[in-house]
């Protein structure tokens, strides 16, 4: 089939165009927004009255001992508490009421981050982020290294330090079994002030923004947990700056796993490059040694050869001298003999 040059070039271009569209589609970078429809909880600290019904309900639902300090005991707020191995959630008072302003409380628990660093740093993969939102922990594989507790930026994990046989990492589970049954988490049901709302995370963000819009004087214009360190399932609203609630303000939107494991991409490079590199060093060393040895031998050989020649020359010289000496001696002897003979014949 004959084809003009133009036709050939044209079909090349068409082919390249077709290929390029195919490749551009294949090279779009994807961004995983998280499992759609996953659940979350909205904690409105302006509504929290510090009654701690959530602590009691959480203990009941998870078969933990009831909080030591009963509900009416206000002394419990004198110190800031964190969750413990027997209390998955605690409520702290961050600002005393002073007549005009009411006191400010906040409930602490595992934040069920979108990209949990506890799951990333666990060397036995004991944590799983479920599509429904909660992060689950498997005590059957846990070896107790406590890297997860060390890494959690919210200090949400606790350990059973007094258990020698099967110590576990203890944390809020977002009542996963209850969620699967269509119920609400225990704390959400128990709160009499409605400071905890359970629902789909995307809905709760809308609700939170709506509340800010409706009551701009009541809230700081920020939904905490929407983007901090990649976002969390627990969202917070507050009327005072979040740093006064012991929450990191201005945290990066980049998730901690992304920050913390970016380095690991170097590891395969080390494994692939180092053998060649180090073997190369070894080879260079050996080569240098070999060359040095060869040089030494060459120098020795030369010295030896040089010495042999010298010795031969010396020997030849000495032989000649000896010959000369001998001839001289013979001559002298002959002369002496002749002289003696001459003397003896004449008388």
């Amino acid at each position, binding site marked *: 089939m004959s084809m003009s040059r133009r036709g050939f070039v044209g079909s090349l271009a068409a082919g390249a165009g077709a290929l390029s569209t195919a490749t551009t589609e294949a090279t779009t970078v994807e961004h995983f927004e998280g499992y759609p429809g996953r659940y979350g909880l*909205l904690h409105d600290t302006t*509504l929290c009255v510090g*009654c701690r019904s959530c602590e009691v309900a959480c203990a009941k639902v998870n078969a933990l001992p009831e909080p030591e300090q009963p509900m009416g005991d206000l002394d419990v707020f004198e110190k800031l508490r964190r969750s413990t191995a027997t209390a998955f959630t605690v409520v702290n008072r961050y600002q005393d009421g002073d007549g005009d302003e*009411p006191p400010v409380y906040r409930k602490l628990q595992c934040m069920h981050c979108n990209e949990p660093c506890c799951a990333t740093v666990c060397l036995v993969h004991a944590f799983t982020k479920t599509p429904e939102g909660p992060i689950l922990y498997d005590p059957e594989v846990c070896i107790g290294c406590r890297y997860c507790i060390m890494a959690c930026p919210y200090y949400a994990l606790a350990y059973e330090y007094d258990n020698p046989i099967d110590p576990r990492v203890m944390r809020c589970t977002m009542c996963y079994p209850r969620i699967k049954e269509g119920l*609400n988490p225990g704390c*959400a*049901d128990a*709160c*009499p*002030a*409605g400071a905890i*709302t*359970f*629902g*789909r995370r995307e*809905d*709760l963000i809308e*609700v939170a923004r*709506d*509340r800010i819009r*409706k*009551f*701009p004087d009541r809230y700081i214009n920020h939904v905490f947990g929407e983007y901090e360190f990649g976002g969390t399932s627990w969202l917070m609203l507050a009327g005072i700056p979040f740093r006064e609630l012991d929450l990191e303000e201005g945290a990066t939107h980049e998730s901690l796993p992304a920050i913390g494991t970016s380095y690991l991409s170097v590891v395969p490079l080390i494994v692939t490059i180092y053998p060649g590199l180090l073997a190369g060093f070894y080879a260079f060393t050996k080569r240098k040694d070999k060359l040095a040895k060869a040089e030494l031998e060459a120098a020795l050989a030369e010295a030896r050869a040089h010495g042999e020649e010298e010795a031969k020359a010396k020997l030849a010289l000495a032989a000649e001298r000896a010959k000369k000496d001998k001839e001289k001696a013979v001559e002298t002897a002959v002369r002496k003999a002749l002289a003696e003979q001459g003397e003896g014949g004449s008388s």
Partner: protein
Amino acid sequence: MTPIRIAPLLFIALLGVAVVAAQQAPAAPEPAPAGMILMAYPEDFGELERPPVDFDHARHTTALGADQCSKCHLVEEGVLTPSFAAAAGDLDPDARMDAYHDGCQGCHQERAEQGLSAGPLTCGECHRVKNAVLPDQAPMAYDYSLHARHVAVFKDRDEKDRCRGCHHVWDKELKQLVYVKGQEDACSDCHRERDEGKTLSLKNASHVQCLSCHLARTGEGKEAGPTACVGCHDPAKREAVKKLEEIPRLVRGQPDQMWIHRADGLSRLVPFDHAAHEPRTTFCTSCHHETVQPCRRCHTVAGVPEGGGVTLERAYHGASSRLSCVGCHEAEQEAIGCVGCHGGLAASENDSECSRCHAGPWLAPGVEPPTAVPNTAGIDPLPPISDDFPETVVIDVLSSTYQPSTMPHRKMAVKLDEAVRTSRLASVLHGDVETGCQGCHHRSQLGERPPRCRACHGEAAQARVDRPGLKVAYHRQCIGCHQRMGIKKQGCTDCHEKKEVAS
């Protein structure tokens, strides 16, 4: 000493530098001590190169003698101009700075040469207030009581002199300030932020007029106003000033009732009871904040620079400013009797119907409005006890940990209704007695028997529409209102007894 041996010493030096650097952390700013004049004047000098000077006026008057004011101040015919005379007037910043330096340092130098106690001569000894927090000099504010007291002082004077001290206009022919009755304006109408030619800035004008009179009267041993800065500019001291019991109405030709309208008929006329509003303000300037002229003189429909870009509509309806009608009304909702319901509503839910204010007729252009009359309408009384308006309500729907709660429905309604009735504002803006029910029976049809709470609030919350569950709905409505109204019953057992736990 070889370089390598110096190394350990170098290390120690570096460590020392680090320790010293740590001490340079900026200290917390301290406010200027009271009674000092902080000479910063950002309006004259802009951003300062050196720290401001804290000027101890009292020390200077003590050192120089109380009769030596003219050393620094211009004293003309017994009138003392409070600013530093040498630095007064239209000077550029450099010239002003030189004036201060020559004046202050010059005098200090003279006294030092004469062997008298003298102030500092070096820069850093005067310019020493680091991290200064400029003191909170609250601007002077007048009120009806003060005005009346001043009027009483001058009441024996001739009519053209009686008010001239404060209310004057420049007569070009007579080349002097004269008083024109009926044209009394606020000082700030002409006296602005800076001196403009002969018109002094508000600060300087006030100081000249007020202070010199006070000083003179104090000198004569008569009762007079304050002569120290804090006397006028310290809010606490102002609160302590004597207030008259009966304050006569300040008359300047204003109407009793009027229409708020535009001649070209943009909306229904708004009947405005000026006489009823006057006692609710502290002074004319509470509403006529820049000038006694009507609002629309500066706040045009489109918005102009004179009005700060605030359109006429915003001037009347802007909810964030107390100067607007709606803004002041909303601020009034924070009264104890109102805040229970109004404090819990979102701004958008709080909008009253426009017709409550826009109650007058439409006016065709060119047509004269009818005579404005006072609003004497009241609201109907509360209905008698019935099924629709029960005496008490027993809430037993959720009772599990706690006993059912008995709510004193009628008692609450009567109390809230009384708060509405005693407030003219509330009565007019509510318009009818059923509006008061909407505080608790929200999002339901006005005038009809309201639906039960559980009709919309299920036991579980509905996150998507941000509707709390029934328990939370009760708690938020009831406890929220109690919190805002300062009612003590906010605890669990205040409303429902705890149930005995079955063993």
